[in-house]
């Protein structure tokens, strides 16, 4: 599994994905000047824009890197050769997943550092009313990274049953939409307007809420932008949720991949 992980991580670097990200990251130095358009919250706007850029890059990476990785191996029949290797299909899948997850962590680290530098420059030029809480920024970057690692697990799950790249790519985009909106739908169901909906619909929506991922929990942007306190119990619960959910999705993916007919 270690060798699969190493080979895949090297492959990602060899494909110059990291170089592409660095090119995209050249937008970061422009953020302080764009933020100065704000009337009253220049530093806050720079944090908003920096996080938008970071999450956008991570989203693209998660979908396209995750969505094509396993599918490409199946399509090119590389997976056919793993039958002769001393590792199970599950280990092969986990090795590939770990390579992308580590790559996302590395990208988050680099982009996170650029984000911190951008915010630091802006906060020197335009000191905010509330001082920047740097710990919140780091936590927000970390949790965004975890969110996209979780999303990558879905690309693998879809790749195990798909015969084309459509399901891994578009299925994951759909999961991202649903996972980002699930908490709002749940909150609406709890509101007086939501209670007026047919009971069956309420029950189906509530059931789905527990099944689909909840990406809202990983969004600490508001805490980072406005220096609000981060609830520690919430952080702990979200971390646990991430681990448990990831284990479930990867187990399902391994189970399905082990039973897939590879020609």
């Amino acid at each position: 599994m270690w060798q699969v992980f190493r080979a895949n991580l090297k492959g990602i670097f060899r494909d110059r994905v990291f170089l592409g990200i660095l090119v995209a990251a050249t937008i970061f130095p422009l953020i302080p000047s764009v933020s100065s358009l704000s009337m009253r919250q220049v530093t806050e706007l720079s944090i908003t824009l920096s996080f938008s850029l970071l999450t956008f890059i991570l989203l693209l990476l998660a979908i396209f890197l995750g969505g094509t990785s396993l599918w490409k191996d199946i399509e090119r029949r590389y997976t056919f050769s793993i039958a002769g290797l001393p590792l199970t299909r599950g280990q092969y899948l986990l090795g590939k997943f770990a390579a992308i997850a580590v790559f996302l962590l590395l990208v988050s680290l680099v982009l996170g550092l650029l984000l911190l530098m951008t915010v630091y420059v802006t906060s020197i030029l335009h000191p905010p009313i509330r001082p920047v809480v740097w710990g919140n920024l780091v936590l927000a970057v970390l949790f965004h990274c975890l969110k996209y690692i979780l999303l990558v697990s879905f690309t693998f799950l879809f790749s195990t049953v798909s015969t084309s790249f459509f399901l891994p790519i578009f299925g994951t985009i759909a999961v991202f939409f649903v996972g980002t909106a699930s908490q709002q739908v749940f909150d609406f169901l709890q509101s007086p307007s939501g209670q007026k909906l047919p009971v069956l619909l309420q029950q189906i929506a509530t059931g789905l809420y527990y099944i689909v991922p909840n990406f809202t929990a990983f969004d600490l942007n508001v805490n980072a932008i406005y220096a609000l306190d981060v609830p520690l119990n919430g952080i702990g619960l979200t971390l646990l949720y991430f681990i448990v959910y990831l284990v479930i999705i990867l187990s399902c993916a391994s189970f399905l991949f082990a039973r897939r007919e590879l020609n």
Partner: protein
Amino acid sequence: MKKLVLVGLVLLLYVSVVVPFTAYMQNKPFVEKLGYVPSAATLRTTSLDQQYLVSSTLIMKVLFYYGSLFEAQKNHIDIPPNYDGMVDVIETAVKLDPYNMDGYYFAQAILTWDNRRIERANALLEYGMKYRDWDFYLPFFAGFNAAYFLKDYPTAAKYYQRAADLTGYALFSKLAGRYMYEAGKTELAIVYLKTMLASTHDETIRQSFQLRLAALEETRRAEVARDLFIAEQGRHPKSLAELEQTGTLDFPLVDPYGGKFFLDETGQVRTTSKFSFAGAKKSRQ
């Protein structure tokens, strides 16, 4: 050579299209420029994890629109502003990001002096106070609106007290107390505008406030001269010209909006511009 001519032709074609295209985009009606903005709930769902970016973008959009409008007014081009459209967008933006100070600040700037939608401004500020519970600006704005526009002094005192509690500034405590009754409206507005000016980065808003502040300072100068005249002569002056003739007013009043100052029948200092370029233009016609 043929290739060169072809490239030149394509470039020429592009330039001949892009020039009228840019002019068309620039001269689009303001309502179209603002565009249709879906409800906050829809936007929150569709913007995924970019809701703070969407909120900031909406506010920027309105700000640019207002900026172009302000420039047009300065150049004496009378375009009726779409205040409702602007405020709808701002309200949507602060629902997406209830901490966004730009939204409250801008709404305060356009809803009060220009539009006189004071209740709507204060409702928005009240909403913001629930989230930005550390920020004294929101109760400060709401207090000013209540005192200056609504003349609701108990409500104003409540807001100023909140601002005082958050900052410990003596000025707000004064405003929360008797100061408001003793000080004239003009002085209150000058204090308010100076506070607003001290904390804005945006050039359009800054210029707008500076103009109003200059006009108010001229008004205050006239009021001080009028009061001095009454104290010395024991009667009201007939006009501002009399204040100049007697030397009570040391130099002529200048309305930066282009209007003319005068004393109304109650002895209050007024200007024909009513603190707007459009008002000055109307008075000249």
